[in-house]
Structure formats: C-alpha cells, structure tokens
C-alpha cells in the first residue's frame, strides 16, 4: 500500500497513523476503567462522564466473522457498480483490553477465517472510484 501522501480516511478520528501500524483510538472511563470503541462521551457501565482518550492498539484476535454477500444500500458508498460488487469480510476483533471492535476484514474466504486467529490493523481502500482519490477505512488482516 503506497501512502506517500496522507490518505483520505472515512473515519480520521478513530485512527492514529505514522507508526509501523495504524492504531485504533477509543476512550476509557476514568472512574471505572471501562473501555469504549469508538470514543464515548459517557460511560454506560457506571454513568460517569469523565472519559479520556485510550489507544486500543493495532493487534487483536478474531472474535466473530461473516461475509457480506450482497451490496449494501445507501449509506454504503463503496461506489462500485452492482455487477462489480465483491463480497467482503466483516468481523469483531477482540483487542487486548477485551473490547471487541467491529471491522472490515481484508479476507472474504470462509476457509481462511477462524475464530481466535491473530489479526493486525491495516488501512483498506474501500472506495475506489475512477477519477477520485481512494477512500480508506480501517480493516483487520491476518497477523
């Protein structure tokens, strides 16, 4: 993946770039320690509003998965023609804090996806429309 210039991101607030791997950002309740993704303004566990930014990391394990077998309707904006749609993987990744992050997967082959497999955060150009800069989102790939 060539990212000489800073990539156009669908969700810039969720990511910290610049290191070897992108890092996912969430928040943590400073009263009870509960961790949230994406960042939350309040803690639904203890009802506190004292939240701080929390880096969830770049590595986790596959907690559940599916294959998106049909092209979603709007607001999905992958931009491909219906005939060109390729099924994509979606999963929850369990991060070291225990939080499970819902994410696109770089794989869409059921034979290659196993609950518990190690995964790493990458950027995925989910929208590639001719004449436009590609738009990236976060995704997990086998580590």
């Amino acid at each position: 993946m060539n990212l000489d210039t800073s990539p156009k991101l669908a969700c810039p607030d969720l990511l910290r770039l610049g290191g070897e791997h992108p890092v996912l950002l969430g928040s943590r309740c400073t009263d009870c320690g509960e961790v949230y993704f994406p960042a939350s303004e309040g803690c639904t566990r203890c009802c506190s509003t004292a939240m701080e930014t929390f880096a969830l990391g770049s590595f986790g394990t596959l907690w559940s998965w599916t294959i998106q077998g049909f092209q979603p309707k709007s607001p999905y904006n992958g931009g491909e023609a219906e005939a060109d749609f390729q099924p994509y993987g979606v999963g929850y990744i369990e991060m070291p804090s225990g939080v499970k992050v819902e994410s696109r997967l770089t794989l869409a082959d059921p034979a290659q996806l196993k609950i518990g497999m190690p995964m790493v955060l990458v950027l995925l150009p989910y929208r590639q429309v001719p004449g436009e800069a590609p738009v990236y989102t976060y995704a997990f790939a086998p580590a």
Partner: protein
Amino acid sequence: MDNEVAIIGIGMHPFGRTDALSGQQQGAHAVREALKDAGIEWKDVGVAYGGSQDGGNADALSNQLGLTGLPFVNVANGCATGGSALASVIAAIQSGMAEIGVAVGFDKHPRGAFNPKPKDWGLEDWYGETGLMLTTQFFALKTRRYMFEHGITDDALVRIAQRAFRNGALTPHAWRRRELSYAEIAESMAVNLPLRKFMFCNPAEGGAALVLCSAKHARKYTANPVIVKAAVMRTRHHGSFEVFNPGLAAQQSPAPTVMASRAAFEFAGVGPQDIDVIQLQDTDSGSELIHIAENGFCEHGEQQHLLASGATDINGRLPINTDGGCLANGEPVGASGLRQVIEICTQLRGQAGQRQVPGTPRLGYTHVYGAPGVSAVTILQAG
C-alpha cells in the same frame, strides 16, 4: 389474582403484500376483526394503544373506525411496539381507566432490507458508508459467535427454517406457504454466513389487534377468554450484544430477553417446563436458535439435539412458532408481536386447525426481541 386482564377478541389482516391497502387500512381491518370476535363495537372501547414503524400513526385509525373521543396513544418501540401496546392496555384496564381496551399494531415497509441511517442511531456516517451498518450482518456475527461458544453446527440453522416453512404451509393466513427442503435452505444464497437467504424473514405488511377487558368480566363477551398471566418488557444493560455496535464491551452481560423472560416467569408463577406452546422472535434462524435458550426452554448448546429430534415441531415437547413465525409470515414490525399473541390465543382456544398443538394446551408464551436491545415477553393461559 383478582386484577387479571383477559384477551376477549383477536383480529388480523393477513401478513404479506397487499398493494391496494395502506398500513393504516390493514390496522383498521385487524381492529374490526378483533371487535367482531369479541362481539362488541368500537364505541364500547375505552382506551387504545397502538403503533407502526413505517405505516403512520395508530391514532389515525380512528378516522376509519369512528371518532368516539377515546384516548388513543401512539406507541413507537420498534419490534416491541405490539408488546408495549399490550402492556399499556393491561395497565390501563388494571388502573380502572377503562373497562375495555384495544392494542393494535400494523405496518407497511418498503421492499428489501431495512435501510437505517447512522445519525438516527447516534452513530457517525463512516459506520454506514464503509458497509458495517446492516442488521443481517449483526445477526450473522452474533450467531457465528454463539455457535462457536456452544458447539452448534449449521444443521440447527437449516432445521429452524425448515420447520418454520413447514408450519407456514399449514397456516392459511401465512405469507410464505411453500415447504422448503433441507437442501433448498442449506444451499440458498449466502447472505451473511452462517445465515443464508431462506434463514431470514422479510419486511412485510399486515395488521394485528387484540381486545382486552378485566378477567372477571371476560365471560360476558366470550366463552374462551385467554388470561394474560404476564406481559413484561425490558431493555438492554451495559455489555449486551446488540445491533449497530461498532464496539462491544469487554464483559458480556445477559441479553434483555433473559431479563424479560425471568421476570415474566416469576410474575406468572410458572416455569419454562409448564409452557405448552411457544412463539419466539425468529427474524432469522440464528436469532431463534439463541432465543430458545435465552428464554429458558433449554440449556445453551442443547438446541442442536432438540431441533434434530423434532422436539420443537407441532407434535413435539416444545412446539415453537406453530404458524411459521416471522420466517413464514414476514415482519411488519409494528404488528409482529401481536401476531405472536394471536397465534397463542388461537392455539389455547383449540382453533388452530391443521397446525393445532395436540392435547389441550393451557399455557402459552410469546417473545419479541429487537433493536436497540428491547425484549417483550407474555405468558398466556386458557381462561
């Protein structure tokens, strides 16, 4: 209990597609059928609660039924709309506000999958734009994890759908009335694995209505009232695995279904082993799979054997979704929960024809579950 409430009239507009009628017209049709069943008129009704998701306001039904001045409250609780309307009518009758009440649900959804907008759910645009905001995805992810944790295979998912369509074929008012073979289901399009095309219900249209009154007056109106032993609604706690959640908490907590079910059994003073006929939310095979255990009808993981042995069939020990459930009837969101109650009433009255549960069922159970984490349970007893 001398404050109990009884169902004295049931009415439906068949689910499916009725291009000529609006959702409200189908709701009004259901109310008229329920009034006829109870042998009363609209002007006898003292209070009404009702709702739809996409079919407009329930109180506008008065324009068709008659402007009698009654308090008519609009309910908007997604999949729990019918359950909430029912619980509200019961409370109104118990409070002495009215002698006779009506609960009504109806809907008319656009074709195809529901099309939610991130902002309506407190989410940012990227969640929808990048292709993560789909209910079918959620059901699949939840089912996959559940099957992994409890050692369940795809066989259970196929059998749930197969039974739904088998029962639907026996149900005159069902939408999908064609039995499907095991292979047809198991080889249907991979919508969101492990869930396939014939394991999902479709949005639909229809109406369902109930007439209720105090149980001590019920026999004035009908020879076979159905007593509401419990009608409970609960919402999610922190840590529950619900739809449209980009992140799940580190520690999972019991689902709202578990809380609603426990409260209903406690309230009714009975247990899962006492129930003779069951309706469970089956927006998809995976949801029903999970709900069999969450409602206390077996331990987690036992479903595989239960389903394979036929225990959940009409002639089995735990007859589930005897009218084909959402899979065979579709899901008009506002009406769906009341359809379940109507099917149980029909079974308890012994009027279910070809799909009648044998013996004389005395106790029935209904369960709905939906976004953003609500569940409603009723326990019903032949009066």
